[in-house]
């Protein structure tokens, strides 16, 4: 994003995410060793995904070293949220042992570092980092073994995490999807079909443009439109006043759920 001539001289800024403190320590020492070979600057470290997002939104880094297996939010999910930053950082995954992820990474030509990491290997990865192609979010989703635990929305440079269990419904508007929780609405740029697939056990489709959380359904009501006199079913969700229309094609869910 900045001028190409300046990026070559400015030190590469780096951020570490790993839930184990000796592992972070090891990376810091290795980065220190690498500074003899290239200009580097460690911006910070975090023990989990939430901390990482908070810190990186105020001090963005060029490269984020992300451990794959972490509590709450795994590294692959964190990478998907980090991809919403502008510009997104280059992500380098680290893992001690994860046959599943490694197989997937090989398949999609994603670079990763095996812990314990050798200094030369880290240096190679960092030297490639500036020119490296960013991993696409769709690819990350394919690589991921499980559904995300959060959706994320970017607002004025900050990334907000929306825990999936707080979502009442998802509704597609023109270009965005509205994510409704009990307290507020967020806008995200994703495809409703992909969301329906990823969270198949959480949401149910009630309309071409709407998915509702199954556990939030309070009941169903039949409504008659005043002007056309047509009747159709609606869903009432817990804690929300609005009633969401069920399309004719999806009416079978009324019987299936109630």
């Amino acid at each position: 994003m900045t001028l190409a001539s300046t990026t070559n001289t400015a030190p590469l800024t780096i951020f570490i995410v790993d839930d184990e403190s000796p592992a972070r320590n090891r990376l810091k020492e290795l980065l220190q060793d690498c500074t003899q070979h290239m200009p580097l600057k460690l911006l910070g470290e975090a023990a989990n995904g939430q901390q990482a997002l908070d810190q990186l939104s105020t001090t963005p880094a060029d490269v984020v070293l992300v451990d794959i297996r972490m509590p709450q939010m795994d590294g692959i999910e964190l990478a998907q949220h980090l991809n919403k930053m502008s510009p997104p950082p280059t992500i380098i995954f680290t893992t001690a042992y994860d046959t599943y992820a490694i197989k997937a990474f090989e398949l999609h030509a994603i670079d990763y570092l095996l812990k314990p990491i050798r200094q030369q290997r880290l240096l190679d990865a960092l030297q490639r980092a500036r020119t490296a192609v960013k991993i696409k979010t769709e690819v990350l989703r394919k690589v991921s073994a499980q559904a995300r635990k959060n959706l994320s929305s970017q607002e004025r440079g900050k990334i907000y995490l929306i825990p999936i269990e707080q979502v009442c419904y998802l509704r597609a508007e023109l270009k965005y999807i509205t994510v409704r929780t009990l307290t507020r609405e967020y806008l995200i740029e994703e495809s409703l079909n992909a969301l329906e697939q990823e969270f198949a056990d959480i949401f149910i489709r009630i309309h071409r443009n709407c998915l509702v959380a199954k556990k939030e359904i309070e009941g169903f009501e039949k409504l008659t439109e005043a002007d056309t006199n047509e009747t159709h079913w609606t869903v009432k969700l817990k804690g929300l006043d609005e009633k969401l229309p069920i399309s004719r094609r999806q009416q079978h869910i009324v019987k299936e759920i109630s």
Partner: protein
Amino acid sequence: MLAILARATSWQEGTQQIVIVSALLQPVLLSSLLLLFALYPLLAKLPYPQSIALVLVLVGVVTMAIQNWGNIFYLPQDTIDQNYYLWRNILSACAITALLLAYFRLRTQALSPALHQAKLQALQARIRPHFLFNTLNAVLGIVRANPKKAETALEDMADLFRTAMSHASELLPAQQEILLAKQYLALETLRLGERLQVNWQIENLPDDALMPPFILQPLLENAVYHGIEPLAQGGVIDIQFYKKEDALHLEMTNPRAIREHNHNGNKMALVNIRERLALQFDIEASYTVESGEHFYRVKIVLPYLKSTADRAKHL
């Protein structure tokens, strides 16, 4: 017998033939059996091929003798070649004996203690590569800042792997198993810090109790991997190990993370322990699992063994 039935043309002829053949067969069988029983001490001392040869010769001689003594009964009216008849019977007696011996040989090989041993060793729970590489990484992470701590960690690791690679069937003092488990937990604490809390209740475990090695560690490793690591705040693993009546009771409870998906065949370690206990103690040991929404509990009951005499029964 089947051959007779196949040759017979009617039920009557069949039964008649069976009676005739049995008249020869039964004395041969019974006297061979008696003879072999009497000669058992001698046979047991001979090497396997020689004893086999001797058994075959014996059976042959017995057949010949009985055939000769009972010549009047056994000689079929229509057979002229008495010599052929005699040799046919000796040969078939030897062939049947050889087949039986081969069968018993195979059977003992299949059920031999050596195989039992090999099976136990194959089942010897293996340390997860996840743990190995993460721990090595953690040790590298502290080696510059705290070399002393790194040394202890590597020593603990050496002990752990030595036991993991040791003979599986030998019972060891339960206290030693507990020490090993504590060394393992020290390594995990290196990585996980405050997140890993362990609550030991082992006051009522007799010092002389013996148990198979590597039961506790894989259980704990499982608890750490599935119960502690996925929790950002960590949790407590409870271990109760005590003697009640003539049995040792081991209970381990760990928190369970919700929505933890797994694709690594996580139950392997536990299946492994269950099978090893079954191989070693049969029904004298039991292994049960109880799991709720937020916890996972394994209960193991072992016979209380303390001396080498007790031990011999189970080896």
